[in-house]
């Protein structure tokens, strides 16, 4: 005999289970391509070395630039390479698939499903991020730590906070790319907006250079924008640049952007689905 409580809980549990399965599917989908993962690890490691040497040259000329010493700057490089795929720092990702489904009209089928479009893709993308953090993040970071003197924390708590910051950064990254994906309802061809998204993500996440090195007001503004949540904040948490309430503030900054952008995605989704026109027969 099922109690009333069980009946009331069932839909909520089913929802959690559904999106949990979608996330697990995203994880497994990307774990299938082992050669691609190995290729990605190789490429991230090569870029890590190249960038690390340029940072050594720059910090040799300007020690303490941007508030980092050389070991911290090099840590920033390798954290950047480790998060490149999970947090989609170059802006590539699921949105191209979503755009293709919007262009072809397959999205109409997605909207019929008993699952929310945004939550579905969010679960899928976070599953992917989890795999890529393990599959593509750990090895480049370890190689970087062996080849260069990095400023990695000894405290387990800092690493946990770092992982939390990474998760929030991946959520912000998803929320931005979901908006980009939905733009296909109006543009149909997503190439242009994808490219602009990549450009902004690459520049404003700190992938090329830490945002603290950016000159004057440009640097201040860049650090307040959501892209800062993707790499700059997690790296600073790992480097212990925020302490006590500062850590909470940094995580709240990420969470606030995640909530705002996810809400914007939800609003745009409801506008877009009201104007779905299925192309073709």
């Amino acid at each position, binding site marked *: 005999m099922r109690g009333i409580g069980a009946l009331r809980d069932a839909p909520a549990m089913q929802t959690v289970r559904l999106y949990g399965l979608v996330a697990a599917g995203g994880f497994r989908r990307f774990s299938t391509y082992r050669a691609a993962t190995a290729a990605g690890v190789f490429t991230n490691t*090569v*870029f890590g070395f190249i960038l690390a*040497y340029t940072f050594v*040259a720059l910090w040799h000329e300007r020690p303490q630039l941007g508030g980092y010493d050389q070991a911290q700057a090099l840590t920033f490089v390798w954290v950047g390479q480790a998060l490149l795929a999970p947090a989609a720092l170059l802006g590539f990702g699921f949105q191209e698939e979503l755009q293709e489904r919007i262009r072809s009209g397959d999205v109409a089928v997605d909207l019929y499903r008993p699952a929310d479009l945004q939550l579905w893709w969010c679960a899928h993308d976070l599953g992917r991020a989890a795999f890529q953090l393990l599959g593509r993040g750990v090895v480049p970071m370890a190689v970087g730590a062996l080849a260069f003197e990095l400023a990695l924390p000894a405290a387990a708590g800092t690493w946990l906070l770092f992982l939390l910051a990474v998760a929030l950064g991946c959520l912000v990254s998803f929320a931005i790319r979901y908006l980009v994906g939905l733009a296909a309802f109006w543009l149909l061809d997503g190439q*242009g907006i994808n490219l*602009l998204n990549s*450009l902004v993500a690459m*520049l404003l996440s700190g992938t090329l*250079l830490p945002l603290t090195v950016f*000159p004057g007001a440009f640097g201040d503004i860049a650090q307040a924008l959501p892209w800062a949540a993707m790499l700059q904040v997690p790296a600073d948490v790992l480097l212990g640049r925020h302490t006590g309430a500062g850590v909470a503030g940094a995580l709240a900054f990420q969470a606030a952007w995640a909530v705002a952008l996810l809400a914007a995605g939800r609003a745009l989704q409801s506008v877009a689905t009201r104007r779905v026109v299925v192309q073709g027969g």
Partner: protein
Amino acid sequence: MAEAAAGIRGYGLIVAMWVRTTMAYRLSFAMTALGNLLMTAADFAAIAIMFSHTDVLGGFTFAEVALLYGTTSTSLGLADLLLGNLDRIGRRIRDGTMDTLLVRPVPVFAQIAADRFALRRIGRVLQGLIVLVWSLTALDGVAWTPVAVLLVPVMVLAGAAIYGAVFTCGAAFQFWATDAAEVQNSFTYGGNTLTQYPPTIFSKELVRGVTFVVPLAFVNWLPALHVLGRDDPLGLPGWVDFASPLVAAACCALAGLAWRTGLRGYRSTGS
């Protein structure tokens, strides 16, 4: 020779078709070409920010680094425009559409290279050229002998040929590892990032590796060091500064061999 002519003709026809397709979405083309230009300009912005904090990097001035940047980026841009879509071959092998190409009366290499030809990649070429021209006006103290003047276009073209050979080797590699397209990014985009910076900032082992193993140093480092009147960090004999066209020819020959070997060993995945 007849085969080469047929290949070039087929390549031209397929490219023309894709250009017409691209122009069906004019606004999107304009946005993507501009986006491409800005995207590649982002790493130059990073270099500019570096030089806002320092006057020299590895002993090189901003204008000198800009010369390195402009030459290698233009070279990569040309190779990427003409052959960049070779990396789609892995996908074609996986989904079986590779077989279609084998029965068409145009060399497979030409078909793959022209497949989905992306005119928007002209953005990278333009951005590289802009930086290159700026660096040539900003450099002072360079002795513009006729040899040095000639060396600039020669290094850009030889560099493009070397990158083209890398793209081809990467595509040939995918006959064995169909999912590993990303490895070649280490040598193309990675090589581009590497050679944007002066060789003096990298470890000797790395410089040796890209001189003797994957000869990216010949894309621009060695000829550009000659133009700038600087010694190369490995102390190689002077004539290597002019060896880029020869190295490029050797790379293309090797790449052609790799491609043919890969294609000959191709086994269809079946239905």
